[in-house]
């Protein structure tokens, strides 16, 4: 659809206004929408969160140029350049394909790059059990330090139980 204001460009902004039940529709190109003041574009604000993040995501552009930016995820087809524009990845596999470039970004956002939280029971497989064992061991140590020996014994039994579960599931292989 052609822009209803300049009658030249393809319209990319569809405006529906409802005032007191009266509906009016307008198709504008981006320039006309901006000029006519129908929309305030957040992209003008460099401190808008997404824009701010985009700035962080894109520092390499000058060094690597277009060649680097053109890399695409083999699964969903998202290019790294798309990512720097939207601050959104396309699929789980993007995290694998762009791993090296994401690492410094994640460090900047989170300060950490290794997950330390909940692990899914099923897809996480034995990892969750290992984590529980670790937690119980810590707790047991604290119980011993506080001379709560009954509690410590309880925890020791729990740890044993979990270790048996690990053995049944084939032990040392980590499920990834």
């Amino acid at each position, binding site marked *: 659809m052609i822009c209803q204001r300049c009658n030249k460009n393809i319209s990319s902004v569809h405006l529906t206004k409802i005032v007191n039940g009266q509906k009016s529709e307008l198709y504008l190109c981006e320039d006309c929408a901006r000029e006519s003041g129908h929309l305030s574009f957040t992209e003008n604000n460099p401190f808008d969160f997404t824009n701010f993040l985009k700035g962080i995501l894109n520092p390499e552009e000058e060094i690597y140029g277009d060649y680097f930016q053109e890399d695409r995820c083999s699964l969903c087809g998202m290019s790294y350049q798309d990512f720097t524009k939207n601050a959104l990845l396309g*699929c789980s596999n993007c995290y694998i394909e762009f791993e090296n470039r994401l690492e410094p970004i994640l460090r900047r956002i989170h300060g950490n790059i290794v997950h330390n939280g909940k692990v899914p029971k099923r897809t996480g497989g034995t990892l969750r059990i290992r984590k529980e064992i670790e937690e119980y061991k810590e707790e047991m140590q604290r119980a011993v330090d506080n001379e709560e020996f009954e509690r410590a014994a309880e925890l020791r039994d729990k740890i044993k139980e979990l270790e048996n579960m690990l053995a049944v599931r084939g032990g040392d292989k980590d499920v990834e």
Partner: protein
Amino acid sequence: MPSGVVIKMLNNLSNRSLSQWISGDGPEGDIVLSSRIRLARNLEKYPFPNRASKEERKAVIAEVREAISGIEDYRLHYIEMADLPELERELLVEKHLVSPVHATDGPEKGVFIDDNEKISIMVNEEDHIRLQVLTAGLQLKEAWGIASELDDILEDKLDIAFSKRWGFLTACPTNLGTGLRASVMVHLPALNLTNNIGKMLTAVSQLGLAVRGLYGEGSESIGNLYQISNQVTLGHSEKDIMENLVTVTQQVINQERKAREALQQDVKVIDNVKRSYGILKYAYQLSSDEAIRLLSNVKLGIDMGIIDYVEDKVLRELMILIRPAHIQKMHGKELVTIERDIKRAELVQALLKS
């Protein structure tokens, strides 16, 4: 307007009463209005919503519906966003059950909501699954308990995108890891009156937390309502993230209480509370912003014991009921601003009387 008419209008609003998190009283309810837990999850085999095809988005909805149908402890109802008129979608935003982005036009988006409006599960928002639990007062641990249980049930049936190194994989890297955003909504009028709010905001943001005004832009907040939430999602356990938020919130509560004590005998404050009550009771028209400001003053008056003739519950409900979509829904049609402002004043008066 007779209060009977208003009650009928309120019933019109929805077949159920107001959400539990709004009407219910919770711990530290004089300062913390609500606590929220949000988890972001994605299905392994589909691209994230921003890159998924129509068919893939449909398939995600079907899989999540199937998984949720097995949940018996909570009665979750599915709503397809495209099936709702705009006003109804706005209503869900005002109740904090869906995000503003989720309420805009767009196909293959949905939400599951339980009877108490405590749980909402958005499908195909920025991530495939955005699970949210809302509770009254400071009850993050309770909210986490429910959210984590629901998460376990979903994970039992769905293959969730997870990496050992980076945790739960999310469309935006700012949610990576735990996918957890924990937040509390706090009412801080006394810190504002004693000019301490700026210092508090700075201190909190230095502790890895984000603060923003609930209404209004940037650090300006209308009605002294602020949302405090964790910034970082990767590298800390859920327990640590929540403990940090609770500890800092507890500090904020203490500071607000101290400021309230200091204002106990302040003539200006007492006068302002009573004047605000007077305006709410007798104004012919009220804008959203003015109503929120005045309600904030009266809430402070109740919490400080300056006035005792308004129920705290009524006030908390009004903070949501006065919002534009709620006013329009009560009247069953779209209204222009001036009409809304008059209806808003009528509603406030009727509820303050009852």
